[in-house]
């Protein structure tokens, strides 16, 4: 199973520490491997450090990609997390 989705980071400070850690934490709950791709660079979505290093300011476009039994579910969950600004009011 493969799935992917293009999303836009809406948090004002971009994908900073807190959102990045929520992202990695959520991704880790799935069996599927998860990648975050930005400007052709792809990193492990389950690693908070790798997610931090792609440095996504607000408004940047990323692709969430997953491969594994629950890939579809993982991509949907993560995309909605991004869309909800990680539940932050910022």
């Amino acid at each position, binding site marked *: 199973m493969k799935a992917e989705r293009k999303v836009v980071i809406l948090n*004002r400070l971009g994908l900073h520490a807190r959102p990045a850690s929520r992202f990695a934490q959520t991704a880790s709950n799935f069996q599927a491997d998860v990648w975050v791709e930005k400007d052709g660079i792809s990193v492990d979505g389950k*690693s*908070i450090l790798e997610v931090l290093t792609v*440095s996504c*300011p*607000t*408004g940047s476009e990323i692709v969430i990609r997953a491969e594994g039994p629950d890939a579809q579910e993982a991509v949907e969950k993560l995309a909605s997390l991004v869309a909800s600004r990680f539940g932050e009011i910022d």
Partner: protein
Amino acid sequence: MEILKAIAASPGIAIGKVFLLNAKRIKTIKKKIAPEDVPREKERFERAVCRIEDQLKQLISELPEEIKEHSNILKSHILMLRDKMVYDKSLHLIETRQVNGEWALELAMDEIKALFSSIKDSYIRERLEDIGFVVNKVKAELAGTETRLDLSSIDEPVIIVARNLSPADTLHISKEKVLGFVTELGSRTSHTAILARSLGIPAVVGLDDITSKCLSGEMIIVDGLLGQVVVEPDQEALREYSLKQEKYLAYRLEVIHNSNLPAETTDGYRIKVKANMELVEEIPIVIQHGAEGVGLFRTEFLYMTSKTLPTEDQLFSAYREVVERLKPYPVTIRTLDIGGDKLATTICCEEEINPALGLRAIRFCLHEKGLFRAQLRAILRASAFGDVRLLFPMVSGKSEMVQVKRLLGQIMDELESEGKDFNRQIKIGIMIEVPTAVLTADILAREADFFSIGTNDLIQYSLAIDRVNEAVCHLYEPLHPGVLRMIKMTVDSGHREGIEVGMCGEMAGEPLYVPILLGMGLDELSMNAMAIPKTKKIIRQSDQEECSRLVSELLGMDSATQVKERAIEFFRTHYPPDMETTDFLEFGQGIR
């Protein structure tokens, strides 16, 4: 005695004895290990990581209620600890390089450092500090040293001096035992500084070499307002700072108790006092300091941070949030007040020789209709969610307002046909900051529902002074008779046409000018939120009749020097001496 200056990280004054945290760097013992010892070394490493993880989890569960919201910092530390770049990588290195756990960690950390050093965003780069805290904890655990900050031996409150404090250490600090702290590393946005602010502990960070400049038990003063530290203060310094401490505490109390009193003079003249703001984070400060709404919401931020122009929906959700959180108070949203040169994207922009007189603010917006349209649509849509007002910057005459209103009318029709909610009766304001706008204020008043005087630009344009230019900045004089006349003229023209006139420049938040502005008959003052309590206090002690007599007197004077002397004299005789100082405001200005 020695006075040192660094970064003010958390406001307040602390006076007490030094508690020096011996910041011996944990020396990494590097050892090669035999192939048969690899499994045992891996196990030792795993155990150390587990213990640190347990410590962090325990700390999270013990956090006092008021700082519970910061548990996410510690949660992210756990994630870092278990991150494959730290955990898996170290285990891998133990096996492939046959090195001990400490060494493997250091090698892993070197790689992370290299990766992070190339990140442009300084906020994210600073998270390297957090990874360092976590890695050092594991290293210390492997070496068998205690990693938790131990304050149990302290019997009287102290000021902690350390090379660095981790967020976990800071969260351990109880207010009863720690008066303040000073560290060699750190910045205003490091997690430790953020925590100090929410704990209300005065702190100065980024002070080089402080751990070698003082000894445990010595007296030290931490001035978290100015970012100063006094090592071994003499009697006079102690007296001076205790006084400042008392004043600051009294000021804080007053903010809490009196900031919500109405801004009304002794003879019953009511003036609205509002806040200027730009970031959503400022909302709690705005409310806490007793603002009766936002008189100037700057909208440049979203345009300056992202490489692509913000979309209408992004703007709308940002505006809507501010409007909803400040409800029922009004929010005056100023449309984009910069030129193409300040935008993070490059949409147009020829190189301009004189940007201050160039294509910026309303001129830029009328030139870049697509951009302007998106912002106006977003503001109008936000107007369905609370009391929103529109403010247009740098208007120089009626023709610009005619264009703006035509565009606004078109957009309203558009929104209506799309079935989107908005307030058709939205109040429209003109920022008065170009001298010709003052001179034609009577004409402009018929085109708007209110005026807001932007003193910074008005003074700059009318005196032809660039404030940043050191050779002429001494001529920047808010009390120049010409400036006073312009303010008066704007107020009178507006009132004659039946519209309200406010002020949102720096001048509005300066105590010395408050009696003058009251005397001019302004309806609203909007300022940095931190200045509101003091301004309200001055207003509540003023007599508006007396202030307007002062203004008539000042308007008859012929130089800025003469006006200033008289204004100072008036202030001295009418208000208690402590109100002249604006020391406490300095900290807040850094927040922006």
